[in-house]
């Protein structure tokens, strides 16, 4: 029923009940004023954010309870599709807030000039975060997830993985954000030696999938020993399924991070409401909801801490993350290196 405001409903009922032209005209004015009093905040986000199992429903309910507004979600695929959608709509976008880009995309997003500056929010990220246009709302470490009952001694680095005969499934950096994260991970950890690492990994990679869903599905079906996912993935199996057989392998090179951010469009007609939403998104209630719906770390650990089970997750010794500008500059050459090394 979202997007169908109470004012509309009210107007329709009254219009059918009373039939005089004058009254209807008077009511139309009244109703449009009522509608203006209940503004709609349009949130552009990725698909899984708004699903029944995503954070969307709780955040919508929570924010609507305080803002006196109607939250309307518009979805577009994943993080990358989101940015494409913003560019496609340009200056006359109806969206006010964009939720779900990651820091590998923010430089590109900023360059469009479509985003407005936002007020920084407090965060507990393991690395310093500053971006005048975006606030982080959750984050995670990329990691190779495996089944403890099948892999007794997981590799502790990319080189060990390359030397093993373990089979892994990864995502394509040209079509998915985890895939891009992996390529930047190897690039930041190995720099000029990255092509060498990819060459060595080639015989471990059984296939490259278009997105995370396909890769994770293949892993759970037993087609691969490991899958590129997040250090927080085992928490889902532990907490929601009471299954403690999944774990993430800790790599000595450190783990690359994915920081998901939200921003406000400069074209928004309701900048104050948009700011209010960003503040809500990064405060305790929404942050708590995000942990067990997105299965990521909250940008700011809520007062009651993390849910039980998260203490079992691996803690990377080193957090890797390129700045937005570095990630933007590294993206195309790193993908080309990856492609060349794996096409041989």
């Amino acid at each position, binding site marked *: 029923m*979202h*997007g169908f405001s109470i004012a509309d409903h009210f107007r329709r009922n009254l219009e059918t009940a009373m039939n005089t032209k004058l009254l209807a005209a008077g009511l139309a004015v009244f109703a449009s004023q009522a509608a203006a009093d209940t503004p709609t905040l349009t949130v552009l986000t990725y*698909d*899984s954010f*708004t*699903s*029944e*199992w*995503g954070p*969307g429903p709780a955040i919508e309910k929570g924010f609507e309870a305080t803002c006196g507004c109607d939250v*309307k*979600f*518009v*979805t*577009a*695929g994943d993080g*990358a*599709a989101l*940015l*494409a*959608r913003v*560019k*496609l*709509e340009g200056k006359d976008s*109806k969206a006010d807030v964009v939720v779900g880009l990651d820091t590998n995309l923010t430089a590109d997003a900023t360059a469009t000039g479509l985003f407005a500056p936002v007020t920084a929010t407090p965060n507990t990220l393991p690395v310093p975060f500053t971006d005048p246009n975006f606030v982080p709302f959750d984050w995670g470490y990329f990691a190779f997830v495996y089944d403890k009952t099948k892999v007794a001694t997981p590799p502790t680095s990319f080189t060990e993985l390359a030397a093993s005969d373990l*089979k892994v499934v990864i995502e*394509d950096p*040209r*079509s998915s954000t985890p895939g*891009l994260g992996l390529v930047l991970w190897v690039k930041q950890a190995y720099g000029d030696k990255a092509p060498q690492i990819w060459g060595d990994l*080639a015989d471990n*990679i*059984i*296939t*490259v*999938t*278009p997105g*995370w*869903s*396909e890769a*994770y*599905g*293949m892993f*759970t*079906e*037993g*087609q*691969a020993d490991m899958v590129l996912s997040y250090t927080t*993935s085992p928490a*889902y*199996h532990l907490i*929601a399924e009471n299954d403690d057989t999944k774990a993430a392998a800790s790599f000595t090179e450190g783990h690359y991070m994915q920081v998901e951010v939200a921003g406000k469009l400069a074209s928004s007609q309701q900048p104050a409401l948009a700011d209010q939403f960003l503040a809500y998104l990064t405060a305790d209630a929404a942050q708590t909801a995000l942990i067990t*719906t997105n*299965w990521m770390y909250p940008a700011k650990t809520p007062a009651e801490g993390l849910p039980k089970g998260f203490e079992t997750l691996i803690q990377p010794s080193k957090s890797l993350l390129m700045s937005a500008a570095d990630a933007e500059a590294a993206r195309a050459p790193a993908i080309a290196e*990856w*492609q060349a090394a*794996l*096409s041989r």
Partner: protein
Amino acid sequence: MASRALPLSPAHGLSIAIAALILGSAAMVAARAESFALAPADWQAVRFTLLQASLSAAISSLLAIPVARALFRRRFAGRGVLIRLMAAPFVLPVVVAVMGLLTVFGRGGPVNAALAGLGLPEVSIFGLHGIVLANVFFNMPLATRMLLHGWQSIPSERFRLAQSLGLPPSAQFRHLEAPMLRAQVPGIFAVILLICLASFAIALMLGGGPKASTLELAIYQSLRFEFDLGRAALLAAVQFTLCAAITLAAAGLTLPQGFGAGLGRTMQIAVPTGWRRGADGLAIALAALFLFAPLLAVVIKGLPGMLALPNGVWPAVVRSVSVAALSAVLATAVALVLATGAARSKSRSIELAAMLPLAASALVLGTGLFLMVRPFVTPETVALPITVLVNATLTLPYLFRLLLPEARQVQTDYGRLTASLGLPRRTVLRFVTLPRLARPLGYGAGLAAALSMGDLGVIALFAGDGGATLPLFVQHLIGAYRLQQAAAVSLILVAVSFALFLGFDRLGSHYADA
């Protein structure tokens, strides 16, 4: 008659509308581009796309010949069920089907277990052979069904004549079956080639790495990640050119069968016995095993989750079924007009227009439509009507391809007679065309409905929070790690798609046999 008097027949009008929709959406994308250039890897992608598509099309069409022939000649318990079930792989959503194939041919599957039992090394499904395997799984049943229609279109009187002349099977093949194959196979090969040309997820999931890059992936990358509209438009142009070339080449190779009209009766014809009987049995058994083992895997995987279905699955079923049924009806009506129009017309323009959607990238089409409608309406509010339009357009070529040979046959057999009688076109349609086309119409409408149930990739661009279709619902479940529920909902998706297909198909056979 009327076809000459009218400057623009309905078929030509529809052809122009389809071309405008497909080319117009690509033009909308191109109009927003800032520069036009292909990436160096794009030509490699074109080569790989052509390689995997031609291998897949050739193997699918060749394997379908013995299977269709065996199914045509033999009668056995469960034959009807088998023929209907053969459509199932084609209507499976790609991701579901690939998971089924992995269960059978992948690591720890029965095929590798059998190899290990024989002391042979494990075979990986990933690579070019995996892509071809999956494409054959999807398309061989389609080819078989199209060829079966071909065999059934040879008037049974001809077979009786051949028998009374005492022609041995080889001569019967040369005089009756070979001309039919000559008429049908180029079109079937072309249609499968075009389907495989646009395949995106199969090549990406089973290809084993970036070597297996396809055109559609390059389009996806340029639209989604790089927002390089110029490159996307150029790639779409390459795809259109390939499609046009393939369609025209296939049309040029196709010869009319020219058997003359039969009475349209089904007669049991005597079939060869001996080793041919065994060979037919083997062809049917192998095809059934190859097609049904992965399906069985999908069913087995989906069952455990059926007890705890997530909320919201039934509204999604209703939404998907409505979209699918509307798309199928729309596509069938358009295909009928185009096929009968093309059968009457000498030029290839209608045929080309009807095949054009096969070359359209769903993503380019969706993006173009998005740009077209956005100045007028909020895209989310028209998500379902747009999906119906796009699904109908994208499924049109399959329907057209199914109808065209038989529409031509009707034209050859009855065209002059109905013209000399001066029958109005509506009468011809009702008493001559429709009864003869009922079978492929029903089958085609079923295919179109089932294909529309699967995600044709456009709804995601338009979706608001108004509610997901079934394939999007499955995506949401997987995205939330709920793989068991996702498997169960996939099974529902498969079952509903197949039920829709069966409904339309039965309707068609019912009218054909009546």
